[in-house]
């Protein structure tokens, strides 16, 4: 009973608390931290659309986020300078709110996604999140050098005939799908807090990239565990407690 209620959601969130801060560091490196909010809102809209259509919400959320991650390249010229993420954010938010307002079926899930309730996660969610986060972490490690090189020495990157599109597309898909799972698991803002705050602290304080990643993961995990316990103890929604704890941690450390 305890395991069903608390252990499975805890482990599901823990997997995300390990990988979201790393993803946040790479998003910040690429000046794309707004992507976290954009993909989360698109995933929420996709999940609600799937629910209304009689499909699995998690699949709908992941499909919508993956489509957004891969599709934004098609509009890169018109939506330069992060505009793509702002447009995705607005569109995702609008669709999600309209669905929740007009479809009774979507209203409850909509509240859960935007309130950030971790405790609805079960075994099926963990079975999806655990292997995906392990895969995403491994891919980020593989892409790490090219992502850094493309940022610091874009001309060297091109002169070596290193192909940018597989790196960028791979990263976009990893970011979109991880954010989609995070949104399904801990809500829009819970996932965003784990993307934004640990990376912010790491970029302010770390002496190097590797140390920065470690500091971000440590911050994310400590914040997550503390928020889980506190939200349970105070009987509060998880997402806002996590966000407030991480902000407090960030203001002290950064």
């Amino acid at each position, binding site marked *: 009973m305890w395991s069903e209620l608390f252990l499975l959601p805890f482990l599901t969130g823990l997997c995300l608390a390990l990988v979201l801060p790393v993803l946040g560091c790479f998003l910040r490196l690429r000046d794309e931290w707004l992507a976290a909010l954009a993909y989360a809102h698109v995933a929420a809209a996709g999940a609600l659309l799937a629910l209304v259509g009689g499909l699995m919400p998690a699949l709908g959320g992941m499909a919508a986020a993956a489509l957004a991650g891969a599709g934004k390249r098609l509009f890169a010229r018109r939506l330069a300078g992060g505009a793509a993420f702002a447009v995705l954010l607005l569109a995702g938010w609008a669709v999600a709110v309209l669905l929740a307002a007009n479809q009774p079926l979507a209203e409850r899930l909509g509240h859960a996604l935007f309130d950030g309730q971790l405790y609805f996660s079960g075994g099926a969610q963990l079975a999806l999140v655990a292997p995906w986060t392990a895969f995403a972490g491994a891919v980020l490690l593989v892409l790490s050098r090219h992502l850094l090189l493309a*940022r610091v020495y874009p001309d060297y990157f091109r002169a*070596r005939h290193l192909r940018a599109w597989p790196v960028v597309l791979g990263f976009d898909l990893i970011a979109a799908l991880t954010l989609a799972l995070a949104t399904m698991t801990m809500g829009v803002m819970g996932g965003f807090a784990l993307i934004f705050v640990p990376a912010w602290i790491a970029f302010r304080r*770390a002496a190097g990239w590797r140390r920065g990643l470690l500091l971000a993961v440590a911050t994310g995990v400590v914040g997550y565990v503390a928020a889980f316990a506190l939200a349970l103890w105070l009987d509060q929604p998880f997402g806002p407690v996590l966000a407030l704890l991480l902000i407090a941690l960030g203001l002290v450390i950064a």
Partner: protein
Amino acid sequence: MSAPLIRAQGLVAGWQRPATAPLDFMLEAGRILGLTGANGVGKTTVLSALAGSARVFSGALEMRPGLRLALQTQGVPPVDGVPLSGRELLALTAASPDGLPPWLVGRLDHRLDRLSGGQRHYLTLWTILQAPADLVLLDEPTNNLDAAGVAHLATVLRKRAESGCGVVLVSHDHDFVDQVCDQVMVLQEVADVV
């Protein structure tokens, strides 16, 4: 004798329109070619054409197949606010720290955005210069360097060439160009040639 690294005949390079007069030059492995000339004659454009980013409008540009390029541009790598140490920067291009000047060796584990402008410039230059490459392209490498930095760079460039690497460098610093280059080409404005 091996094929030259670069052979250019009547090369006219540019971006939207031609930006250089026709150029003829050749570079063999182990030699340093200096490009000088007034502002706007297309020195950087020639480097960009060699790197494959600028357009070749006419003439022929042959590069030895399989050439590994390393390109340093005048732009400062955007590392402000990024937790990246000097040692990690070198690792990105597999550049060796061996031979770094003493005033940089002790700072390799510092964040790049906490180094002085000159230290950061030399380290970012070193990262390209010492990357495994057959041809190194350098754009105004002496910018932001003090006398000690310029002297050290001259020595390192000669050693790099002696190891078999070809180097093309663009510079306004005529003393530096005369000191390190095996061949020098003074570019002229398009209007002067036409």
